[in-house]
């Protein structure tokens, strides 16, 4: 039996090696490929959309390189699709970053900036980016959440957060605002945190993704 193929979409935004290495670690029998080749992505069994940096630059590259079409094909194919960090934010309708950027629109909702005036329980300024290990509060059962529990910590690093409807929210996280830490819809799942950097719970999620058939 040939090995299944997981492609990580490379559109020039950021470091894709960490996520590739984490996937190789949890799924030694899956072929992990970082690629911008549309044919390879179309052949893949699982597709991952990463992303770091500013949303304007990410969306510009997504459109310039035709990644929007690739994502549309992947989503319509019913194949398991995972977005990470800015790769999650890109799936929303709109982001307020960079004076407002329209995104791919797979989820109704908006990407907003954390407050620059909020304080913590000691009255100290809440730092932005939201950087470090925070807990998640699970809202649903989902194949990607097997073995993961409310209260588990994941590694976040972001200044903008997703605000969406409860029907899309798989888990919440709270910083100055309560925001969507994970969202889902049909064969799409996405995380604001970096599962590849969130040992051990994040690796459980990646393993679940590799094992997922795209259905609830």
């Amino acid at each position, binding site marked *: 039996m040939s090995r299944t193929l997981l492609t990580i979409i490379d559109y020039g935004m950021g470091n894709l090696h960490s996520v590739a290495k984490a996937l190789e*670690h949890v799924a030694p029998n899956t072929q992990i490929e970082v690629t911008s080749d549309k044919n390879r992505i179309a052949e893949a069994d699982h597709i991952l959309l990463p992303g770091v940096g500013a949303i304007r630059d990410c969306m510009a590259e997504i459109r310039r390189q035709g990644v929007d079409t690739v994502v549309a094909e992947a989503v319509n194919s019913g194949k398991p699709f995972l977005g990470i960090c800015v790769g999650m934010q890109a799936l929303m309708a709109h982001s307020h970053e960079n004076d407002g950027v329209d995104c791919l629109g797979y989820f109704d909702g908006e990407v907003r900036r954390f407050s620059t005036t909020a304080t913590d329980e000691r009255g100290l300024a809440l730092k932005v*980016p939201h*950087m*470090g290990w*925070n*807990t998640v509060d699970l809202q649903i059962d989902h194949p990607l959440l097997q073995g993961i529990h409310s209260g588990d910590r994941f590694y*976040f690093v972001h200044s903008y957060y997703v605000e969406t409807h409860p029907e899309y929210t798989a888990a919440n996280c709270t910083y100055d605002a309560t925001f969507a830490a994970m969202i889902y819809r049909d064969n799409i799942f996405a995380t604001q945190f970096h599962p*590849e950097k*969130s*040992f051990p719970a994040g690796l459980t999620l990646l393993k679940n993704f590799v094992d997922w058939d795209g259905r609830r």
Partner: protein
Amino acid sequence: MALAKRIIPCLDVDKGRVVKGVNFVNIRDAGDPVEVARRYNEQGADEITMLDITATHEGRDTMVETVSAIAGQVFIPLTVGGGIRTLDDIRTMLNAGADKVSINSAAVFNPEFVKQASDRFGAQCIVVAIDAKRVDDHWEIFTHGGRKPTGIDAVEWAQKMEALGAGEILLTSMDRDGVKTGFDLGLTKAVADAIRIPVIASGGVGNLDHLADGVLEGHADAVLAASIFHFGEYSIAEAKDVMTGRGIEMRR
């Protein structure tokens, strides 16, 4: 439940080996960096920072291999610093598997480099390292391992680095580094209260209460230490016990 404060063990690496200098002299060997990083990951370290203190070109290639080996086995954030001077240096380290790079002297020589790096790779992976020493009633930036004064005020410098796009500040007291009498809490608090990006306190940890002091009195978001962990004096878990006991939110 809230965002946890972070414990970051720091590996000073020279020619592929972990060492720890006391005031940058008296180097002691602490082992293979890959093994050390794995041990910290298993013990529950929240991130790992690795500083390349080798000056030579060959040492640099060794460092890239070391970063790559660690990134294949350690799945928590990894910061790499030491000799990061160009956008190519940053790309090389990120491609090897680092999640963030720490920029030190290059920022002092050319502050615009921080902006270029942040614009290109994102603020989330740009840490600016500040080495500061007390001079009269304030703190100044020093380069060349603490030997060369610049006359720049540390607090103003941190604000400038934030404005140029740094995602985080790694703040080391050169007066305390290796001395084990605790962080310079005045310096830490002055910088942490003046900026809205996270501050990692560094330099001077001799016991576990010093780590908690860095957060509670110094207002640090993360604490970095080397020798107390490398030589088995304390484990990461013991450090988290002490910090939790003093009311600090930690990842357990």
